[in-house]
């Protein structure tokens, strides 16, 4: 009995063991590049003392695709499919961010109805992104049910995209100045179905997780970050708000008529995985309320206004095909746009939107040619990922997995 006690105290004072003794040795573990628990191509070399992380080194760049270079030879509308591949869990947000940047550079003013339609699509994709993130946190802490139950509603969101633009994951949705076509009735019916059924599902999802003792024990205090550190590390979005800073681009620099909507920015306190989960969860409710408001506003449009789905910018917005065959101007613009022969006004512009992970910025420099002179994407993931080694240091290996999924790291956005 006495011996046992001695052994235990020795294990506790492990750190005092002489240098080089076998118990003191740490283990190096390669977590990634392709590890089933990391949901993407990330490599982390972790130095383990038992199960505790002493040190971590991150390597990124496994799926780098040189988007910034590619963009230097493409006309503006051909860059939209590139932005799809940044954060592929919420491509419409990236697309819209890009269109808004172009519109800022070109000085295009979009009609209110277009803004509201965009808000609907953007908030839908925010919901689908947060849904994935939160349910994956559940999967990583051993609760698979949530992930399986909510996926049919992400599917419904994807069906709405499909009705609007024809594709689901990499959407290439919208054009400079608006949408490629008006929303069909089927799209609005699906939207109504979503608005009617989704609150119940989200409630059920909350019941599974929010006050679940096991989930709380698993996530509270896991991977925390203080507000000052988070700001210094360039955090934005839900991860920053979980640390207690109420910075939201939608409120600070409203775009696409966000100033017309009533919503609350949820903030957390400790910046741990549980707070990040709660902030994302509350944001889904807020997004739902924004969609409802936008849908009501859209229904209030009457007459010709109720049919508007793009701005009147013939030089950048592709004309309708039947006009191309019958009208000369339409034919000229069609040719110029398709062949990428439209000159972009010279200037430099930075525009940012609140993407699902934080401030997604586009820094576009044009020298008056047909393609951007330089385009830089400010990817929120890339910037806050550098805090990851600090956040997991001193914690358990299994906490590192939950921290990673609750940060919502998307490899596509990280590597650009």
């Amino acid at each position, binding site marked *: 009995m006495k011996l046992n006690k001695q052994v235990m105290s020795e294990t506790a004072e492990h750190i005092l063991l002489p240098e080089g003794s076998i118990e003191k040795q740490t283990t190096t573990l390669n977590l990634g590049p392709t590890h089933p628990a990391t949901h993407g191509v990330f490599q982390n070399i972790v130095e383990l003392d038992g199960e505790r992380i002493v040190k971590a080194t991150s390597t*990124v*760049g496994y799926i*780098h695709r*040189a988007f*910034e*270079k*590619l963009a*230097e*030879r493409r006309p503006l509308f051909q860059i939209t499919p590139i932005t799809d591949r940044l954060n592929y869990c919420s491509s419409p947000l990236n697309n819209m961010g890009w269109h808004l940047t172009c519109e*800022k*550079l070109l000085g295009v003013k979009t009609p209110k109805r277009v803004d509201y339609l965009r808000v609907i699509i953007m908030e839908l994709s925010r919901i689908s992104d947060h849904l994935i993130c939160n349910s994956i946190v559940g999967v990583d802490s051993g609760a698979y049910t949530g992930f399986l139950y909510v996926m049919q509603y992400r599917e419904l969101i994807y069906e709405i995209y499909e009705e609007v633009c024809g594709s689901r994951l990499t959407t290439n949705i919208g054009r400079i100045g608006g949408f490629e076509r008006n929303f069909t009735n089927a799209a609005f019916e699906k939207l109504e179905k979503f608005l009617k059924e989704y609150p119940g599902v989200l409630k059920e999802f909350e019941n599974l997780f929010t006050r679940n003792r096991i989930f709380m024990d698993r996530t509270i205090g896991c991977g925390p970050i203080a507000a000052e*550190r988070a*700001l*210094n*590390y*360039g955090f934005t979005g839900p991860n920053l708000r979980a640390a207690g*800073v109420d*910075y939201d681009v939608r409120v*600070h*620099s409203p775009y696409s008529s966000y100033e017309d909507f009533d919503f609350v920015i949820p903030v957390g306190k400790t910046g741990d995985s549980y707070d990040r989960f709660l902030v994302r969860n509350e944001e889904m409710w807020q997004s739902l309320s924004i969609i409802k408001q936008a849908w009501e506003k859209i229904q209030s449009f009457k007459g010709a206004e109720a049919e508007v789905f793009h701005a009147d910018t013939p030089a950048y917005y592709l004309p309708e095909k039947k006009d191309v065959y019958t009208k000369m101007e339409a034919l000229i613009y069609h040719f110029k746009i398709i062949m990428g022969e439209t000159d972009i006004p010279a*200037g*430099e*512009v*930075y525009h*940012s939107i609140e993407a699902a992970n934080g*401030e997604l*910025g586009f*820094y576009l*420099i044009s020298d008056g040619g047909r393609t951007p*002179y*330089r385009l*830089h994407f*400010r990817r929120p993931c*890339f*910037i806050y*990922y*550098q*805090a990851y080694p600090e956040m997991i240091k001193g914690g358990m290996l299994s906490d590192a997995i939950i921290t990673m999924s609750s940060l919502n790291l998307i490899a596509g956005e990280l*590597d*650009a």
Partner: protein
Amino acid sequence: MTNEAIQLKLTEKFGDQLTGWEEPYGMLTFTAPKELNLKVLQFLYDDEALKFQFLTDLQAVHYPDNKGAELAVVYHLHNLVDNCRIRFKVFTAIQEPDVYSATALYQSANFMERETYDFFGVNFIGHPNLIRILNVDEMDYFPLRKEFPLEDQTRIDKDDDMFGR
């Protein structure tokens, strides 16, 4: 916090060393000599009225025709309290692309400076770990510089039959 007020405060401190004042699309933009970049950043960070304490973005632009100052390092800063953004640039010669690193002030500059180094070869002095980040370590050129054009799409010497092109 208006752009004029910021400009006034900066000119008070640095005199006519700051040049190229512009306001493209409402964002105050100016150029600083590259030796001064940390001093400007520190002043913008510490000043009680300015409080530009959030580094939004950091990247470079290559202007091959701008002899002697080919590379521009661009900082986007944000004052989160008053919600005001500014952009400032430092130019450096491509033969000697040394710029002081902002990592001591902003942790977030770490990856962004590594990315800028990786693509443009800007040598950030004082960076703790200035190695390539997105490209392979063996790469011996800086791909986003303008002397590396994208492949000519009309080239015919390449056998792409297997890909149906």
